[in-house]
């Protein structure tokens, strides 16, 4: 079930289609490809110096493909150009010219190309191909899977935010939909459909938006109907040292009043206090508690995108070291501060969830522009509050709501186009990692497993689907994303069986509660499956998850086996035995031998554990006897285990 293998297969079939259909665009890209194929390329393992393979490197318009030639069962590595973050050409060595490729999905691959000229060509091609200059060059616009136009369109209807707000019981008598941003007139990075308290009029909204950075006025993000408290989001106020805005004050008051259960609301500035104060000099800043009635203001201190970028880079440098000693690892991890940043984000989300869930107070969250830290905190807060977001479908809705429509700048943060490298930052990665930490702490309340998170992260950077292309809804509309590309959500739904968490139990009482994660440092671990997902050599041999998944797989095989045997029995003119039909057993003299057999099996089974049972039974099941007696005996052996496993697993997967 290992991820890369799956992805190769997937990417390969996608690629073929792309090549066939969009020949025109391909030809344009072909211009960049000088050397489409290099042979005798060495691929070094990042963590064990002794292991290297030799193969052929192919360069296509969408992928860089490395095909092993040394082994009998050649492995292939497909790297999408959009995934390439950095290409490095190292100084020439005796064996050849080393080329190191760092990917956005944290794959690091080290090639040694025998001829420097080839290396140079590949290097230049990759530089061009990995940094498209316009959106039209992105893979999503040429990606055409085997789907009808209708299916493609329906794919975009999988997630409907109107339904989502209705699920939150919005609009209601306090909150309503406003059309103030129709045509992106007030704020071009916001969606057109926004929810605000009924008591605020359009002029108030417009006034408030003028007082907020980038016009991002306070709007509803999540409504927790149990306490009537809301999570709202906006950008920083343009308060400078003393400026006030009555409309904005009115707006906040209206949000506070919208919650009958609390006489105050929190305003959470997710920045460190120093940063916020520094912003005041630029005419921005934070709310003055004296000017706003009934607000409680606090800073939560999440660092900005530049700090995060540097921090992650540091982690990956440290953890990419060969034969990493323990002390270097710990020191590196500490000094990078990455886990501390993760903790800060989760801390903020936890206190947000507590305020809304426990205290029943509404919270207004903002950072500088309200699209990075705000998106993180709001979405994680909702995730802690609402069990729906812990399901596969709900998680899509959450991302769509708090990230895509509210204008998290995916294009810039992920570096989709050749742009300002200072705008690139792992904000979304950080969010995904926070969710992973939650799944680790609460293994039974999430419908999805780590695989799902990794898959989403993969496609945020792959630009294979339209969802994450561009910076905001306005841009996406202009690009006609929904008309020209496919949606990731339908793709994920089709494959959702792969992402299920076998331990999930929606009937568990705690599955419906507000989660209270523990944010002690001990509980934060380096996420190896994300940052080293392609370095198979350093993974633990088998995770609990993959164990259970193989378990399910085995169970399915057993069922198949049972069916086959059943058919054989019928073919041989025997009635299926009583054990099989699960009816109370009636003694039949000719079956007594069989009975004995199953009995001994029962005895054995009680002593061994489940896994060994299934393995052994599989072996037993493989006996394909022609003789009827033998077959019967075999069958009755299979059956008891099968029943157990099946029901046990059925429970597990429900």
């Amino acid at each position: 079930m290992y991820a890369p293998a799956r992805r190769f297969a997937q990417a390969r079939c996608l690629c073929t289609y792309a090549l066939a259909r969009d020949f025109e665009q391909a030809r344009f890209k072909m211009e960049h490809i000088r050397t489409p194929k290099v042979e005798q390329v060495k691929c070094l393992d990042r963590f064990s110096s002794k292991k290297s393979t030799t193969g052929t490197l192919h360069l296509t318009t969408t992928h860089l493909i490395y095909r092993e030639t040394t082994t009998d069962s050649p492995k292939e590595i497909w790297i999408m150009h959009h995934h390439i973050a950095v290409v490095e050409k190292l100084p020439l060595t005796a064996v050849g010219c080393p080329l190191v490729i760092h990917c956005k999905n944290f794959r690091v691959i080290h090639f040694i190309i025998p001829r420097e000229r080839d290396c140079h060509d590949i290097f230049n091609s990759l530089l061009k191909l990995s940094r498209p200059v316009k959106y039209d060059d992105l893979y999503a616009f040429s990606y055409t899977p085997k789907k009808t136009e209708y299916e493609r369109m329906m794919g975009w209807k999988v997630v409907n935010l109107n339904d989502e707000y209705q699920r939150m019981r919005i609009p209601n008598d306090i909150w309503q939909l406003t059309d103030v941003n129709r045509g992106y007139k007030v704020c071009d990075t916001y969606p057109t459909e926004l929810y605000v308290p009924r008591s605020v009029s359009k002029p108030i909204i417009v006034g408030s938006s003028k007082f907020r950075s980038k016009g991002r006025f306070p709007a509803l993000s999540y409504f927790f109907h149990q306490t009537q408290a809301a999570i709202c989001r906006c950008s920083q106020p343009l308060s400078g040292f003393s400026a006030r805005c009555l409309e904005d004050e009115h707006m906040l008051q209206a949000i506070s009043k919208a919650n009958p259960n609390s006489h105050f609301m929190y305003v959470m500035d997710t920045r460190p206090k120093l940063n916020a104060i520094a912003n005041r000099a630029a005419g921005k800043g934070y709310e003055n508690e004296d000017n706003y009635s009934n607000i409680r203001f606090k800073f939560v201190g999440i660092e900005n995108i530049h700090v995060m970028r540097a921090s992650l880079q540091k982690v990956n440098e440290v953890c990419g070291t060969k034969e990493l000693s323990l002390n270097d690892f710990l020191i590196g991890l500490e000094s990078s501060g990455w886990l501390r940043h993760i903790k800060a984000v989760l801390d903020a989300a936890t206190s947000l969830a507590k305020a809304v869930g426990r205290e029943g107070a509404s919270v207004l969250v903002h950072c500088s522009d309200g699209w990075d830290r705000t998106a993180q905190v709001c979405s994680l807060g909702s995730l802690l509050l609402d069990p729906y977001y812990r399901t596969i479908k709900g998680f899509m809705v959450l991302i769509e709501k708090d990230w895509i429509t509210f204008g998290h700048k995916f294009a810039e943060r992920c570096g989709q186009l050749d742009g300002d490298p200072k705008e690139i930052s792992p904000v979304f990665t950080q969010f995904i990692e926070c969710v992973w930490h939650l799944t680790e702490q609460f293994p039974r309340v999430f419908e999805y497993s780590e695989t799902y998170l990794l898959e989403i992260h993969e496609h945020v950077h792959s630009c294979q689907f339209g969802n994450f292309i561009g910076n905001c809804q306005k841009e996406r509309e202009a690009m006609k994303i929904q008309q020209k590309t496919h949606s990731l959500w339908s793709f994920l739904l089709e494959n959702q069986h792969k992402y299920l968490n076998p331990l999930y139990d929606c009937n568990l009482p705690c599955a419906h509660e507000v989660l209270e994660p523990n944010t002690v440092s001990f509980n934060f671990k380096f996420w190896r499956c994300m940052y080293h997902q392609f370095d198979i050599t350093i993974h633990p041999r088998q995770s609990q998850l993959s164990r259970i998944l193989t378990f399910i797989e085995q169970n399915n095989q057993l069922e198949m086996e049972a069916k086959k045997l059943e058919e054989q029995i019928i073919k041989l003119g025997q009635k299926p035995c009583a054990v099989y039909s699960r009816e109370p057993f009636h003694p039949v003299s000719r079956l007594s031998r069989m009975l004995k057999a199953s009995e001994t099996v029962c005895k054995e089974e009680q002593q061994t554990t489940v896994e060994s049972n299934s393995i052994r039974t599989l072996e037993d099941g493989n006996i394909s006897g022609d003789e009827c007696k033998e077959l019967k005996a075999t069958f009755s052996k299979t059956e008891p285990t099968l029943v157990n496993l099946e029901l046990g697993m059925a429970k597990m997967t429900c």
Partner: protein
Amino acid sequence: MLSLGSGGGKTAKPSFVSYVSPEEIKKENVNDELKPHLLPGEILICEANTVVKLSREDSLQRGFYGKLICTNFKISFLSAEQLLDEVEQSYRNKLMGENDISLHCVDQIFGVYDDKKKPLLPGAVKNKIPEKLLLYCKDFRVFHFGLRYTKEEDARRLIQGIVHHCLNPTSLKCLFAFPYVGAAGGLKVGPIRIEDDPPTMMFESKNDWRGELDRTGGLLTYRIISINENYKISTRLPQFFAVPLSVADDDIKKYKGKGIPLWCWSHPSGCALLKMAAVPEAADDSASQMDKGWIERQLHILGEAHPINYMVRTEILSATLPTLQEIQASYSRFKQLFLTENAAEFWETDIKWLSALENSNWLEVIRQCLKKALDIVECLEHKNTTVVLMEENCCDLCCLVASLVQVIIDPHFRTISGFQSLIQKEWVMGCHCFLDRCNLLRNNDKEVPVFLLFLECVWQLLQQHPPAFEFTETYLTILSDSMYIPIFSTFLFNSPCQRDNNQMLDEDQRMLSRSLKLPSVWEWSVQFENSVQALFYNPVYVGKPKTDKIRRTQRVKPQRQMSLPSSPSYHNRPTSKKGFFREETDHLIKTFLGKKISRWTVTTEDHSVNYRQFYDDWRSKPVDHHGLLLPQYDGPALKVWGQRYLRWIPEVQIPGGGSTITLNKIFEIMDEINTLQTKVSQRVLKRQTSSPSSDVFTPFHQASRLSSTFPFGTIRRQSIKPRIPVSTNLSMSFGSMENLPDEEDLGVL
């Protein structure tokens, strides 16, 4: 820091809020005399009433009134209030209650005077009574006792008693085990009876050794000798042990068993793991030359002893592993991370968690041990080289590395009985100085947590390969706690000889033919009910397939290497290391490596590269839980043993979360499978009318909302949340159903 107001009452510091006023308590105490639960032979030494136990969950602002007593076994807090409030506990030790601290479990004692924490040391107990008594335990519990309302003379006597009995040096005979067993006599504590199946081998008889030699296939090349019966030759050797066939009895006598390769374990391919203690340092050069010749001969014998000739590698452990002193220093830094007094202090360490962890170096020590074990495993498994572990006394790191290697290679030692047998064989019979290393007598500075380090290494393996072990981390945690309960013969002595001598009683008692047999720690029923013992069993353990033989069938063919590499390179072998065993090491190295010892010896230089390669090769094969189990020792792979170290810290608990929840689910499924199995068998055996032996063990049954630290440190926080439905029936997997089909056999036939 939050604390009680000072006794004088002049300050307005926050003081604890009590549910009842002192007057009420007095009344209550009159009514309800609290009876301490004393074990046989336990004597009350001192007591004090109206002590407040402050609970950390309430920020040390509230607590329970009760009585603090000190006996010759434990410090115990008794409270009537608490009993009412008691949360059902799934984990209960029969010897030690929740508020009991064995005297040997106390690590540090502090008194708080006017908000200042001062260590209380024996002989230096001040006249002034501290307002608070802080007890730091070796199992990482931290107790706060407020003495503000205690009568002064009571408090003084109590503190003196506690400090004296917890910190002053004592003698072996004063350890609680002796009065306990003496008093229990033949009544409760019978002869060693371990209810495992298969039983734990104690290695006290020839038969056990023969059985083990037979199991590992070492019977042809090794023999069991009984020359040391009644410890005639050496007190630092067990009565029986195994040596290469050709070692003569006289050889053993020469250096009192030192300088003789002692058999630990045989690899199925024929090579073996042995250990050897250094010969006593020679007085002069000629004598040391002789010693070298001696060693050479022994190794030569070893090389030739095998039907197929193997290479022999000598491994001087003290030269490449951290010294005992470093281990001790590292552990004392490490444990301090978890002994936090209150929440504020905890958060303080939490900020610098990773660097503090690094600074302690403890994980690095573990890593070194795993690496060394891997190195030796590679020799045995891959190069078919017989390895001789060498150490000055061969009873510390030798035990550690030898047993770790065996856990890695031999699946038998990953079962509970196998693991216990291993500890008997390598540690107890290997004369590991438990008494000194645990410092139970508190009279020396030889305390080194070597055994704990071994458990740590096993834990790392366990968390990397959960299905390969029959036991759980709870088992390891409880085993590590048991070291500080001075009842079990396993952890009380420096050698089997010392144990046997001390178990012998005075003449008059012997006349009464009462044998004073201390229980072994493996008699778990002394400590735990079956329901707790059920927690020892790993639900995801992959039982041994029936068809499989004890050993894996296909084997690497031994290289029939008759000639050896022409130039063994042990001349440039490493190298002294700093530390307090340095001289010994140097001496050892001199003896062994001064000149070319034997053409059978080989030392490889590029170990690290070798075993890395070996590890990579192993990884590329599919996993076999009954085969080799190599540890991953890269930095990120090693983790902190959360259950052991963090279980009592309320800040770390995840209510309703953590891996416990997963485990719980697995138990649930096991339960269901068992129910179904019962049903199936009932249908097959149609005469079966009632479900037999349905609920025997119910480990999760009573547990209210589980926290991540389960089964330790139950949550006392008031929770309005409903309970998680948990498994009720764990019994089936542990063989209580076995006899059901047996009975029915007859009926059907």
